[in-house]
């Protein structure tokens, strides 16, 4: 699979077609749900005021555009059948979608963690774990990560005053320290 963000349209054609099939399926399903998902509001309403009008137009265009893309991709596959190598790579490409999901799982854990251990500590652990996970394991990277977390606190919590919910762990501290932690960290 070509790296996203690099030059050249190197995406696997079978993977691209599968993606378009998914998009076409979702958009088609949403269009079929139009009646159920948009309440008419008033049976006697004029056509241009009906709540379903705007989503109907948007979804119709979406379905047509998706099927046009699909038709183009299928035509291309018919004109130039995929090679054995391209077929073999297609599965790797699909599993490649799991790579960002892994990072999003860490991200979800980060969201959960800052509500329990606080923003600063949560960020520090998250940044350190990500650095470890992506292979930046020298001491200097962790140091830079810590500097970044301090800067984060300085700019957003202390500078811009972004409020965060008080985590349970701060209850373990004396009142004065707890207040400071809630306010700044």
């Amino acid at each position, binding site marked *: 699979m070509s790296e996203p963000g690099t030059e050249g349209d190197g995406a696997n054609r079978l993977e691209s077609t599968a993606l378009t099939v998914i998009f076409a399926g979702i958009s088609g399903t949403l269009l079929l749900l139009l009646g159920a998902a948009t309440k008419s509001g008033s049976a006697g309403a004029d056509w241009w005021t009906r709540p379903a009008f705007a*989503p109907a137009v948007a979804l119709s265009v979406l379905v047509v555009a998706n099927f046009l893309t699909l038709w183009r991709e299928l035509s291309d596959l018919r004109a130039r059948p995929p090679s054995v190598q391209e077929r073999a790579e297609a599965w790797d490409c699909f599993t490649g979608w799991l790579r960002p999901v892994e990072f999003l799982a860490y991200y979800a854990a980060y969201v959960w963690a800052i509500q329990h251990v606080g923003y600063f500590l949560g960020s520090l652990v998250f940044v350190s774990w990500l650095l470890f996970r992506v292979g930046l394991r020298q001491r200097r990277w962790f140091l830079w990560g810590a500097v970044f977390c301090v800067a984060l606190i300085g700019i957003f919590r202390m500078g811009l005053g972004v409020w965060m919910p008080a985590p349970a762990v701060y209850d373990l501290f004396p009142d004065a320290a707890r207040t400071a932690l809630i306010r700044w960290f």
Partner: protein
Amino acid sequence: MDFLWLGLQQLADPSVFLTMCIGAILGVIVGAIPGAGAAVTISILLPSTFGMEPLNGMTLLLGVYCGAAYGSAIPAVMINTPGSPVAVLTALEAKPFVDRGEARRAMSLAYSSSFVGGVLAVLALMLLTQPLANIAKNFGSAEFAMVALAALVLVIVGHNGRRAEATAALAFGLFLATIGIETAFSTQRYTFGLSFLQQGVALVPMVIGLFAISEALIQLTARGASQPAVQLKGHFFQGFMEVFRYKRALYGSSAIGILCGIMPGVGEFLAQQVSYVMAKRFSKEGHLFGKGAPEGIIVSEATNNAVPPGALIPMLALGIPGEELTAMMLAVFLVHNVIPGPSLFIDRPEFVAGLYWTLLMMNVIIILFLLVATNAIARAALINKRFLGVLILTLSLIGTYASAYNFSDVGVAMVFGLLGYILRSHRWPLTPILLGFVMGPILENRFRQAVGGADGDLTIFVARPISAIMVAAMALLIVLTFCGWLKGRRQPPAFQINDT
């Protein structure tokens, strides 16, 4: 005169001046870091500006926008890696300069043409916005609906080689805008009984997901090492005067940049391509383009920097954003109840005048900063991509959360982040999603008002002169595009819009 004086008073406000400097310097730095860029930074900063005065917030974001346009040239020249897609042509033209040991000359050409393009575009903004707003005073709902529709048509037409995907992305954005409570009958659309969807899809989590989280995921999963930066040699001021030897390329490309900025949905990438193709055709040294022609760098950078102020013209005068970054900035207006459009010049003249002056001064600040800091910024451009991914992902959480102090928004951002990653990895454009999302409510409301006022008669759009002209122009554009597609379908397109 009083109007301009009012603007100078705004600029003299230390908080405005400070945010301008911070925004401009930050913009240059992030513009120079491949993978960071204006879209990522503005999306993360957006919620932080909601608590600022409108002019401060806009100045900060515009500083990032304009600074990034300058900064993207640094890695293009010094490490032959464009800081953003719009610096691809600069990288192409600068490489032979670097090979000849004239990196500093290339850098000077890039800076000076950026400066001229940027300043001319701000002057155009000052001269054209109010007259356009005066014309817009005569606009009714039919005209506004057609302006919005024209913008959407331009978005699709502008994505040469990816029009079907751009149409799908645009329609998806339009659909997203319809989710939530529908105002006319207070009924729900596509909420599926989920309470967090009743308010609709929030702009900030969507923007951060599509532009910042997806970028972070790309950087985190990317492989490959950075190249070392070249050392600058030669006379720095050589190129500063040299640009005026190529007046036609300089002023012509600036004019194209301004024009394309004004046209909603066109954006800097297409503007640059059009400028480059035209300059190559009309230049006496057209054969040197792509082989280190000074005009190539001038055209690329002047156009690139003329677009941001140009894109502000339709936003301030009509309330129609020109491209994705001004669409994000529209949120700052809405949060502060500043309504862009013809009434803005009557209701908030100090805001508009202040914006003009800060934009003008911003170009001076940026060029002064670049004169002293180019080598240092070039080192920042070499930041490890995976480390950058970690930074962006961490920043995106506070950016999303700070918009509404709601952790459920982070979930929305994650969904859009994954979607953005998948779409970008398949070269589907993201910008049309945002433009469709922002323009959808404008189009729907104005369409309803216009058709409702005509009792359902659709000929209202051709019965009014300005609206009729727009309908005719759109029809002509669609026909010409279709003819062009039929003619060239057996040949690959000269260029493809790849704003991802």
